[in-house]
C-alpha cells in the first residue's frame, strides 16, 4: 500500500501557472517592503490627526468666541466685542458717528486696553471730553472674573479723565438695549429719562450726546416732583442688573438702575 499511495501522490504536481501566480503575488510585497502588518504607529496617525483637528477647532473656538462686550458711549456710541482673552473681535457702531469711528480705527485683535487708549486718544472723542462731554464705558456679558478684569482695565484707561463712568451690567439688559437699537450706556439713560418723560424715543436718545441726555434728565428731575412712570415699573429690568462701578457723579441720574451704575472721575459738581 505504501508504494501505491506514494506513486499516486507523486503524480500530483503544482501547475506552473499556480507557481507563477504565487510569485507574482509575492513580488510587490518583497520589493515594496510592506508585507508586515500595519504598524500600530501607522494606525495612530488618523487618530492623532483627529485629535489635532479637535484641538485646532477648540483653539479656534476659544479664540474667536465672543465672551464680553464693552459699550462705549459719548455721542459716538459703539461696542467692542471681546474674546475670553480680552482681545477685540469686532467693533459695532450704534449710530452714524459710532460707525464712522469704528471704521476709522483698526481695533480688531487689539487688547482691550490698547483699543480703549486708541479710542480715547482719537481726535473727536478727545475733543468731546475736553468739552466736558460725558463718557460711559460698560462691560457686559462676561464671566464675573472677566467683568472685574475688564472693569479694572476701563478704570485704568480712564484714570484722571473727567466725566467718565465705568460699570458692569447683565447680558439681558444689553440684549434689550440692542433690541431698541441703542448701545448699553444710552439704553440706561433712556430708561432713566423714560421714567420722567414717557414721550422720549430711542431715536432721540440715539442722536444726542450723553451729556445733553444727562442734563435733560437732571432738568426733568429738578422740574418734576414725581416721575411719569412712578406708579408702574419702567421695564422688566428694574433692579435686576448685576452691575457695579465707580465714579464721583453721586446723586445724579438716580433711576431704577442707579444701583448698577456709579460715575467716576467727574471733577465738577
Amino acid at each position, binding site marked *: *500500500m*505504501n508504494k*501505491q*499511495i*506514494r*506513486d*499516486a*501522490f*507523486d*503524480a*500530483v*504536481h*503544482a*501547475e506552473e501557472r*499556480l*507557481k507563477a*501566480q*504565487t*510569485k507574482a*503575488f*509575492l*513580488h510587490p*510585497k*518583497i*520589493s515594496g*517592503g510592506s*508585507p*508586515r*502588518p500595519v504598524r500600530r504607529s501607522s494606525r495612530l496617525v488618523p487618530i492623532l490627526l483627529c485629535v489635532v483637528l479637535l484641538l485646532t477647532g477648540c483653539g479656534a473656538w476659544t479664540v474667536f468666541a465672543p465672551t464680553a462686550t464693552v459699550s462705549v458711549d459719548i455721542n459716538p456710541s459703539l461696542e467692542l466685542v471681546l474674546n475670553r482673552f480680552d482681545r477685540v473681535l469686532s467693533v459695532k457702531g450704534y449710530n452714524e458717528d459710532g460707525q464712522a469711528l469704528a471704521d476709522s480705527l483698526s481695533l480688531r485683535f487689539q487688547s482691550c486696553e490698547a483699543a480703549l487708549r486708541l479710542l480715547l486718544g482719537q481726535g473727536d472723542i478727545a475733543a468731546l471730553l475736553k468739552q466736558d462731554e460725558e463718557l460711559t464705558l460698560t462691560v457686559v456679558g462676561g464671566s464675573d472674573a472677566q467683568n472685574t478684569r475688564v472693569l479694572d482695565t476701563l478704570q485704568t484707561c480712564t484714570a484722571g479723565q473727567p466725566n467718565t463712568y465705568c460699570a458692569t451690567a447683565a447680558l439681558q439688559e444689553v440684549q434689550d438695549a440692542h433690541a431698541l437699537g441703542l448701545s448699553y450706556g444710552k439704553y440706561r439713560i433712556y430708561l432713566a429719562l423714560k421714567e420722567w418723560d414717557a414721550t422720549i424715543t430711542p431715536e432721540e436718545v440715539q442722536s444726542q450726546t450723553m451729556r445733553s441726555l444727562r442734563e435733560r434728565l437732571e432738568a426733568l428731575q429738578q422740574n418734576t416732583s414725581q416721575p411719569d412712570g412712578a406708579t408702574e415699573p419702567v421695564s422688566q429690568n428694574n433692579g435686576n442688573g448685576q452691575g457695579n462701578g465707580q465714579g464721583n457723579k453721586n446723586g445724579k441720574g438716580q433711576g431704577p438702575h442707579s444701583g448698577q451704575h456709579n460715575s467716576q472721575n467727574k471733577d465738577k459738581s
Partner: protein
Amino acid sequence: MPSEQEINRAVDRYADMLRRICMLYMKNEADCEDIFQTVFLKYLQRKEPFQSQEHEKAWLIRVAINACKDLRRSFFRSRTLSLDEIAEPAVAMPSDHREVLEAVLSLPQKYKEVIYLHYYEEYTAPQIGKLLHKNTNTVYSLLARGRTLLKEKLGDADYE
C-alpha cells in the same frame, strides 16, 4: 525578511507538497490559489530563521493545513458554494493513479490527512501528533482505521 530568490526557491521546492495538501482539503483551484498565497505570505513574514530544512518543511505543512481548515471554516465559505465547485467538483487528478488517489481523497478528513502524512511524507505517528496537535495513540488509531477503510475501497488482494 527572506529575499526574492529565497522565496522563489521555497515556492519551487514546496509547491508540489502544498498542492497535495490542498487536494486533501480543497475542492477547487481558486481555493488552492488562496492557500498558496496565504502560506507563502506567512513564510515571507516569518522573522525567525528555520533550524533545518525539515523544520522548514514541517512548518509549511502545519501552516498549510491550518490555512485550509481556516478557509473551510470561514463564514463566507460555510454558507456558499462556488461556481467552480459546481462546474468542476474535484481538482484534476492524474489518470495513472486515479483509483488510489480517489480512494484516499474519499476517506473522511481525519483519516486522509494522517494517511497522507504517514505514507507519503513518511512522518511517524508521534510526529503527526505534533503536527496536527493530536495524541499519538489517536494518530495510531486513525492510521489503523484509515488503512482498513482504504483496503475496503481498493480491494484487499492488490493492496496488502
